[in-house]
């Protein structure tokens, strides 16, 4: 800097600025011009790098230069503030002062924790990227999940980041602090102390947490008059009552399907719902792994009103009304000789297979199993207990233990008790910890009008929902990924829930809130849980024991011991009630397959997950059979008015093949009014019909057609195979044994080489996938797993209706046979990664190409969106971003994204990649260790979630890979292989094992 410039005098500038600020608006601008008119400022404005900034150069006095630079920066800031009219928000960059051990940026960590549904734990591993949980996997060491993962758990990460979650404590809608609530609570408690807590009520959902149970016990000691109520709208009420009826005590029942050769499911969807369904599905499918070497298979009879994934897997499925299943169970018990019931009845369907099933069960004593559905009345449970005991199944396929619930009660009576107290004005303080009783309590209870009768009402929940609206205080609940806790699983094994992230908002867990009622109200959740277990496991090794328990996600040896309760004499003395329709219909209430009892209504992933069988999204419906629809004169989408017990509900009809005639299945959980932006106004609310008289099914429903049409968003319109039988190859076990190849007859696979292009030799890896249709239950866990892993956008009902759903893997459902009870087949369809991929040929810009490892890669950046590839894809697995579907805006949802997968923008095509990010991760890790990727290093997301291990992915060049072995099976076939696409994803044909004694 030769021409030593005039030094900038900051003081002068400041003075000018101050002068400017004092003046009026016009003068301000004039004075700014004046200010900027100095040569220094003009230079500053015009040049990107003002002369002073070069002060760092070597030919200048360093200190001087630096000072100049700093001055200049100051001036720039001052001017910047003037030049830009908006103020940038302050942002902080927070580097690690001490980098946590094990944390390598870009490399995820996995922590064991547990989700709960109905209080029962599902052990999971949460994937954490730099401190933010992004994905849930099953915990292989947890007995309930065995490494698989259901949709509810998968979608819980979206629940964590849901922008609609309650963020702050509110009192009458005004924001308050936890301290304010604590003050209010303590003063109310002080009052209660004088009354021994007689006006204190705690309402929770089902609690299996030992810690919470001990907290409640401590509270009960402090306030002897306190009452603890539990209400779970879709809980196993009948199973509890059935155990009491059979054994005279509450007993926990669970099954071991790995020993079961003949299974009879009495309206039980044990493969896809219930606390241990993942484990049952695994065990069940292990006995269906028919190979050329071992052609053995179990046999499943299912009796149910509405087709479920379990019904679709049945070797014999009998459609009966829910109320007739009691008679069926009675008849089966009679057939087995354990009860004296009728052998004939009005409804011949009930009795037509009894003899054959009974003989089959008797042939397999100790290897048979009768499962009563959770929604079936106590008598059916009692009958199942009696049959299992008589067949010698107890201890082999059926196990009993003490209840896993901390305080098993008849929850309906418990809620009724609370209601009476509320109406009597006896409740001063009502703490509702979780749940949404105002929405989901029996309609005749009038919970919404009873709750406001309590003086101090506080509701702890994730969302400010229907119940919160009635409560003075709403307390934001911490998500399970934000809090410490514990819970038992189906066999009593305890899991410690550990948080993955600090609460995003001001949420606190139920344990923390309960702690406020104890003598040490300030103790944190961690201290409470750890303190409880320290008391359970005293000794010097507690720290290491605790660390192991938290690390493993299960506390070894906490499974409740199996016991063999004695059947009471009066167990099955009660005769089945008559369930004549009398010209009316049967109402069947069931938890929704995707949003359950309504708690997941604001979860877009679950709302958009096509429900098994119906493939409905975003809605429930009045599901009826084709014959009933004909009788009512309706088609799918026509509106019905449903009248039952003085209540009525308008709902659209959905005609479901395989549904029993004369009944209407209503899935609970829809019709929310305060669930959040996603769930509000979706579907209609069957809780408005559901009374305490019959929680699950009852006759006496009337349905009449009313004017109006409703538009459903179903992802599959055509389910019939007709001439295209080769889409789903199926056969019976007998046919398979005779000639395995007969199962895949009709598949014409052209010889390799029937293409103009020379074959590619795969030197290194050659990825491939095989899907065993005989194992797949159609539960759709793979779909949610894929959504979570691959940042797949939620598009909303209107877009789903326009067939624009973005799922990379879908589960197709096909029907074959009679419309009133067709065979139902499920088929997961990811990208086939064709060797001769039709999509690659037609892309004009080379945006989709074949990789050297056989993957059909999609280059989002290159895609211009001609959509020709999708037209030419015979499997229609390609998905297109018709709009900007991905959410780039919502701050909390940004945390959700998997950093290893591109978030796709508008106008580009996308599709299944075989989780190429996982492949590359494994390849890098293997390369670092100087080896090849081995079998088991890579699991695609769908594969990892699959409870039945139906999806197998691997290296086709590895002679030991499972996928290669599966592809060598004679049941292996390629979907639409006759098109010479040479799909890399192939299917193993599905088999049925019908009982030859059973006739249609």
């Amino acid at each position: 800097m030769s021409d030593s410039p005039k030094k900038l005098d900051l003081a002068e500038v400041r003075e000018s600025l101050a002068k400017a600020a004092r003046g009026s608006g016009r003068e301000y601008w004039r004075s700014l011009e004046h200010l900027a008119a100095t040569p220094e400022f003009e230079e500053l404005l015009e040049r990107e790098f003002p002369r002073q900034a070069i002060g760092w150069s070597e030919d200048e006095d360093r200190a001087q230069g630096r000072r100049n630079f700093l001055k200049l920066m100051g001036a720039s800031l001052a001017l910047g503030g003037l030049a830009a009219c908006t103020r940038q928000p302050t942002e902080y960059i927070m580097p690690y002062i001490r980098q946590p051990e094990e944390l390598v940026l870009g490399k995820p960590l996995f922590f064991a924790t547990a989700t709960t549904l109905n209080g029962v734990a599902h052990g999971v591993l949460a994937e954490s990227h730099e401190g933010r949980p992004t994905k849930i996997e099953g915990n292989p060491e947890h007995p309930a999940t065995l490494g698989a993962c259901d949709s509810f758990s998968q979608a819980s990460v979206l629940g964590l980041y849901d922008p609609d979650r309650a963020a702050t404590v509110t009192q009458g809608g005004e924001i308050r602090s936890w301290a304010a609530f604590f003050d209010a609570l303590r003063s109310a408690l002080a009052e209660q102390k004088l009354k021994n807590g007689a006006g204190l009520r705690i309402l929770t959902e089902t609690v299996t947490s030992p810690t919470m149970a001990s907290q409640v016990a401590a509270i009960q000691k402090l306030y002897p008059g306190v009452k603890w109520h539990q209400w779970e709208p879709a809980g196993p009420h009948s199973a509890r009552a059935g155990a009491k009826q059979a054994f005279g005590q509450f007993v926990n029942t669970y099954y071991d399907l790995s020993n079961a050769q003949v299974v009879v499911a009495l309206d039980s969807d044990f493969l896809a719902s219930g606390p241990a369904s993942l484990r049952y599905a695994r065990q069940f499918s292990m006995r269906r792994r028919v190979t050329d070497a071992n052609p053995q298979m179990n046999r499943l009879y299912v009796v149910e009103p509405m087709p479920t994934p379990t019904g679709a897997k049945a070797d014999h499925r009998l459609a009966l009304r829910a109320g007739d299943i009691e008679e069926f169970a009675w008849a089966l018990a009679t057939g087995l000789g354990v009860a004296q019931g009728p052998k004939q009845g009005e409804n011949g369907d009930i009795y037509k297979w009894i003899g054959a099933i009974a003989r089959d069960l008797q042939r397999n004593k100790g290897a048979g199993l009768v499962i009563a559905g959770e929604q079936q009345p106590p008598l059916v449970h009692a009958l199942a207990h009696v049959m299992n005991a008589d067949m010698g199944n107890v201890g082999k396929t059926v196990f009993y233990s003490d209840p896993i619930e901390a305080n098993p009660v008849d929850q309906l009576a418990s809620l009724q008790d609370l209601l009476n107290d509320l109406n009597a004005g006896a409740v001063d303080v009502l703490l509702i910890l979780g749940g949404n009783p105002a929405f989901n309590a029996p309609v005749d209870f009038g919970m919404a009008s009873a709750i406001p009768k309590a003086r101090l009402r506080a509701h702890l929940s994730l969302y400010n929902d229907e119940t919160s609206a009635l409560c003075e205080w709403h307390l934001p609940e911490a998500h399970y990924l934000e809090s410490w806790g514990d819970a038992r699983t189906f066999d009593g094994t305890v899991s410690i829930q550990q948080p993955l992230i600090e609460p995003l908002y001001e949420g606190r867990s139920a344990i923390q809130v309960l702690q406020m009622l104890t003598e040490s109200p300030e103790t944190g959740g961690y201290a409470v849980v750890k303190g409880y277990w320290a008391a359970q496991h005293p000794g010097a090794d507690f720290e290491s024991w605790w660390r192991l328990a938290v690390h493993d996600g299960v506390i070894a040896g906490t499974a409740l011991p199996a016991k063999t309760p004695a059947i009471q004499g009066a167990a099955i003395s009660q005769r089945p009630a008559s369930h004549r329709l009398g010209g009316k219909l049967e109402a069947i209430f069931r938890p929704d397959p995707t949003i359950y009892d309504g708690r997941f209504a604001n979860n877009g992933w679950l709302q958009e997950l096509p429900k098994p069988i119906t493939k409905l999204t975003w809605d429930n419906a009045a599901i009826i059979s084709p014959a009933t629809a004909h009788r009512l004169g309706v088609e799918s989408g026509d509106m019905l008015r449903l009248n039952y017990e003085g209540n009525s509900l308008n709902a659209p009809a959905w005609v479901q093949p395989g549904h029993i005639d004369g009944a209407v299945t209503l899935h609970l959980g829809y019709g929310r009014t305060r669930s959040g932006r996603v769930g509000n106004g979706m579907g209609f609310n069957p809780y408005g019909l559901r009374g305490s008289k019959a929680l699950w099914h009852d006759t006496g429903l009337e349905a009449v057609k009313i004017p109006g049409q409703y538009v459903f968003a179903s992802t599959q319109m055509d389910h019939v195979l007709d001439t295209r039988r080769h889409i789903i190859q199926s056969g019976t076990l007998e046919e398979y044994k005779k000639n395995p190849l007969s199962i895949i007859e009709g598949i014409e696979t052209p010889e390799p080489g029937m293409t103009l292009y020379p074959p590619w030799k795969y030197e290194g890896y050659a990825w491939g996938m095989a899907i065993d249709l005989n194992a797949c239950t159609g539960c759709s866990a793979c779909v949610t797993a894929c959504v979570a892993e691959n940042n797949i956008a939620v598009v909303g009902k209107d877009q789903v209706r326009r067939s624009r759903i973005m799922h990379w893997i879908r589960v197709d459902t096909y029907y074959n046979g009679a419309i009133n009870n067709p065979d139902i087949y499920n088929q997961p369809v990811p990208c086939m990664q064709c060797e001769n991929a039709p999509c690659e040929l037609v892309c004009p810009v080379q945006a989709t190409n074949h990789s050297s490892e056989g993957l059909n890669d999609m280059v989002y950046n290159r895609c211009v969106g001609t959509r020709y590839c999708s037209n030419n894809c015979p499997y229609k697995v390609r998905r297109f971003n018709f709009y900007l579907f991905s959410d780039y805006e919502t701050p909390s949802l940004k945390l959700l994204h998997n950093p290893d997968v591109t978030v796709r923008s508008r106008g580009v095509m996308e599709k299944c990649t075989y989780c190429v990010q996982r492949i590359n991760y494994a390849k890098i890790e293997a390369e670092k260790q100087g080896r090849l990727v081995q079998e088991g290093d890579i699991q695609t997301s769908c594969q990892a979630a699959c409870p039945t291990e139906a999806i197998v992915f691997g290296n086709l060049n590895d002679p030991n890979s499972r996928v290669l072995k599966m592809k060598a099976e004679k049941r292996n076939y390629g979907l639409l292989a006759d098109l010479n696409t040479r799909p890399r994803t192939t299917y193993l044909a599905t088999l049925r094992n019908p009982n030859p004694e059973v006739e249609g």
Partner: protein
Amino acid sequence: MPDEPQVVEPPEPKQLIAPGYTFGSVTDQIATVVLTGRTPVFWLACFSVGLALLFLFLYAVALLLAKGVGIWGIRVPVMWGFAITNFVWWIGIGHAGTLISAILLLLNQRWRNSINRFAEAMTLFAVACAGMFPLLHLGRPWLFYWLFPYPNTMNVQPQFRSPLVWDVFAVSTYATVSFLFWFVGLLPDLATLRDRTLNRFARFAYGILAMGWRGSARHWSIYETASLLLAGLATPLVLSVHTVVSFDFTIAIVPGWHSTFFPPYFVAGAIYSGFAMVLALAIPLRAVYGLQGLITDKHLDNSAKVMLATGLIVAYAYILETFTAWYSGNVYEGAAIWNRMTGPYAPAYWMLISCNIILPQALWFKSIRSRPVLLFIWSMIVLTGMWLERYVIIVSSLAQDFLTSSWSIFVPTRWDWATYFGTIGLFLFLFFAFIRLLPMISIFEVRTLLPQAKVEEEVQG
């Protein structure tokens, strides 16, 4: 169309234009349309309709660019809907212009002289409308240039196996050649306008456009060579463009698309719809501007005969398509045709059969061909039919292909319609602007049809 002479009778020069015209009156009548200060109400009405629809088009396109192709009814599995239908339809319409100007020129069909100018303009504007759609239908239209092989730092080139890349070349070549042919043909007439206009600005503009045409013998000699060469260039395009467009479908494996007879079928269909459009434009124009003497009933008759002939080729293709579906024994092909005839798109299919095959049989009758009003109605029927044909081929084939699980029915949205009618607006806007600003009939070529010109030729000969 090498077999064209069989269809079209050898023209009798004396019948081509009405008697009584002189060189001067021909020039006067054609040039007056442009040079007059008075604009007919008919023109104003048509131009206004075009302009209004053009604004609708602009609005629809703005919305499309702002929001994405989701505003249309396309979905999985029908990823191409109105946009590609319209593209193929418009390209097809353009074909008549090229056929008239190039092939008929080479075949010395002199009756073409009265209609070639506006037919070429029609081609140009139809191609302009058609060209919009492949761009607009892209998910990211701003990246359309990636379809061109241009040197770039990524060293990525288009994928030459894709018919869409062939389309790019075919259509851009077609547009270029059509424009050149049209413009070169305009030169002498532009000079005429330059010389006759009294408006300084118009003289300046026509002067620039006429590129210094003075009508010297040397000019005429070069002109004749150039137009013959361009005709030679354009002739294969008549066949190739729609052949390449048909490859968009035949190369794919979609049942209902994947067949070998699409190229001739598409070319015939293109000329079919193109002549329908020529009639649809010529009949009102000659009525309004009193050009019955130049565009005579003979022209209309000839055009109708071409329509009849190409319509029969199209009919043959439908029959063959059905036959092949059955004869192949391919379950998908069979189902595709069966669904087309009986499925959700059956109304569209049977309507197109009526419009394209059944009703046009009336053109066998001279009484129909000789009534311009009826011919106009018939040309509209054929245009509708041909649009439906493209729609049915594209949409019904995609909607129901291999896996029944993914079947879904395309329902056009209002923006589909807005874009479609919007391009009709663009077409009308451009065409009526052309009518007003440039001679719609080739002055100098019509003059060669006059008996006076014939005499000279004979003298020379």
